[in-house]
């Protein structure tokens, strides 16, 4: 009986994947020579220097680098929380950010934050329907229907009336990703969503994210410190240098999907890790030494 049930769910999932396949062609990000200087007149901190990166529609990009390397700055610029000093960013060939263009956050580029930003005063269900309701894209009832459908598909239906504070961080992050996805965004921006989780929660969260990715196939910009996590999840790993943030190397991850934790010990995985390890380590060391200097 149980096997039957499993098969049914798999079938459903593939159906969804097929349903969405025709719209996944959107969400290509083109980041051209982006430079961000904080306080150009005064302290003049170069956060990003001449970063160029092409992210294909539906691609999963993981950005790795030491703290202060500008990966979050780039995310904030894409999200529309911050402006840039030089360069342009295009989303599906439309200008998104350029000097003089007012940054504008919006539901086509939803962000999931490091510490989680579910509204603590709203139940899980009310959190999930927040986007479509505030945009007046759906009525409350319509949104609830869709939200329930999405939550139940992820085994989160039982908790729809629970407040976020009652959930574990792993579940919170899952709800938050559902809250983002219900807006049908072109790009999902994830700012170290699994930082500080214990390894068990983390690997469960990885599986959940991968499963969501396989279903919805959105463009993902994923920030992390953790090289293994980056390789395991993504199609492309971007290694950034310590400040001023530049792109040091990009690595295409050719591991097949769906991904499985057993891949963590395959020769190909280790080979990819080996390629990036030295670069990541060197940048981390540089950042560490600079930190020591700044403190001294």
């Amino acid at each position, binding site marked *: 009986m149980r096997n039957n049930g499993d098969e049914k769910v798999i079938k459903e*999932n593939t159906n969804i994947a097929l349903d969405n396949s025709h719209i996944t062609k959107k969400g290509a990000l083109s980041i051209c020579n982006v430079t961000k200087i904080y306080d150009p007149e005064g302290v003049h901190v170069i956060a990003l220097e001449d970063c160029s990166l092409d992210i294909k529609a539906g691609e999963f990009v993981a950005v790795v680098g030491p703290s202060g390397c500008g990966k979050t700055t780039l995310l904030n610029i894409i999200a529309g929380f911050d402006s840039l000093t030089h360069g342009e960013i295009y989303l599906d060939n439309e200008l998104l950010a350029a000097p003089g263009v007012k940054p504008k956050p919006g539901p086509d580029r939803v962000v999931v934050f490091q510490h989680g*930003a579910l*509204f603590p005063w709203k139940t899980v269900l009310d959190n999930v329907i927040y986007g479509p309701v505030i945009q007046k894209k759906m009525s409350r009832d319509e949104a609830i229907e869709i939200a329930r459908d999405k939550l139940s598909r992820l085994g989160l239906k039982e908790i729809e009336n629970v407040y976020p504070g009652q959930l574990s961080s792993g579940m919170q992050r899952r709800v938050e990703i559902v809250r983002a996805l219900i807006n049908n965004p072109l790009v999902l921006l994830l700012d170290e969503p699994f930082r500080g989780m214990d390894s068990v929660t983390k690997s469960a969260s990885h599986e959940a994210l991968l499963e969501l990715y396989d279903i919805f196939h959105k463009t993902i910009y994923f920030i992390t410190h953790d090289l293994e996590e980056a390789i395991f999840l993504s199609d492309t790993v971007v290694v950034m240098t310590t400040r001023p943030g530049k792109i040091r190397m990009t690595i295409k991850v050719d591991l097949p999907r769906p991904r499985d934790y057993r891949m963590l010990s395959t020769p190909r995985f280790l080979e990819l890790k080996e390629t990036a390890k030295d670069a990541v380590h060197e940048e981390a060391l540089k950042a560490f030494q600079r930190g020591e200097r700044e403190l001294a």
Partner: protein
Amino acid sequence: MSKTNISKDNSVANMFVKKEISFGKRLQKKLFNRTNINGTIAILGFFLIWHLLVVLRMPFMKHIPTPVTVLETFINLVTKKVYWVSLWFSTKRVFYGFVAAQVLGIPLGLAMGWSRKFKYLSFPVFEVLRPIPPLAWVPVSILFWPTNELSIAFITFIGAFFTIVLNVLRGVSSIDKELYRSALSLGAKPQHIFRKIILPASIPSIATGMMVGIGITWNVVIAAEMIAGDKGIGRLTWEGYLAGDTPTIIVGMISIGFAGWLSSGIVKIISDRMMPWRKLF
């Protein structure tokens, strides 16, 4: 990897399903929990020690009556109208002062937290007025307000007002930046931010302000009544002192304690209602 991993772990979710317990059992659980039992023991112990200290003629206890005498006075007083009238007047003054402080203080705190310009405009005046103790307002208050009642309620208001404003202001300015950002990212417009984020996110600090405020209003009303009032439980206590009637003083003190405790309890219930998400498990 199993595709259905997520769909299966309903067991985690099941722990949020409420179990039904009968009303009698719930009441029993509510009344006879560890907190209540320990609290009762502590109060009884307090009276016992007090009694012993007086009976054993310990130093400094010469003018203090035993709890038994106090109880007799208490029983005598509660049968008289003057006691209830006093209590009623004090409660009224606390209520008016407290409500006025909330009604004016919460919007002011929100506005100061929301608009930096408004904060820069109003904060200096606020910070000069704030350290003035409520009782220092008594003479001006009596001159300014037409009736005695209004002037005492005003002094009570002063007591709670600054606390609530400061709490709300601090609450608004400590709202996580990521909550604003995630709202904007989900499609909220800047004009939604106040009602949808700032207001609900500052409810916990409003509640804290209310809790602290209700305590202060009782402090202040009693002192104000002693100086300026007629009627009121503070006045009753003071008259006990003037008449050299120590048991009445102590009955007054205990009544004030009870009234304060009861009001805090009511405010606590209200504030829990205001933020159901804070009552976890």
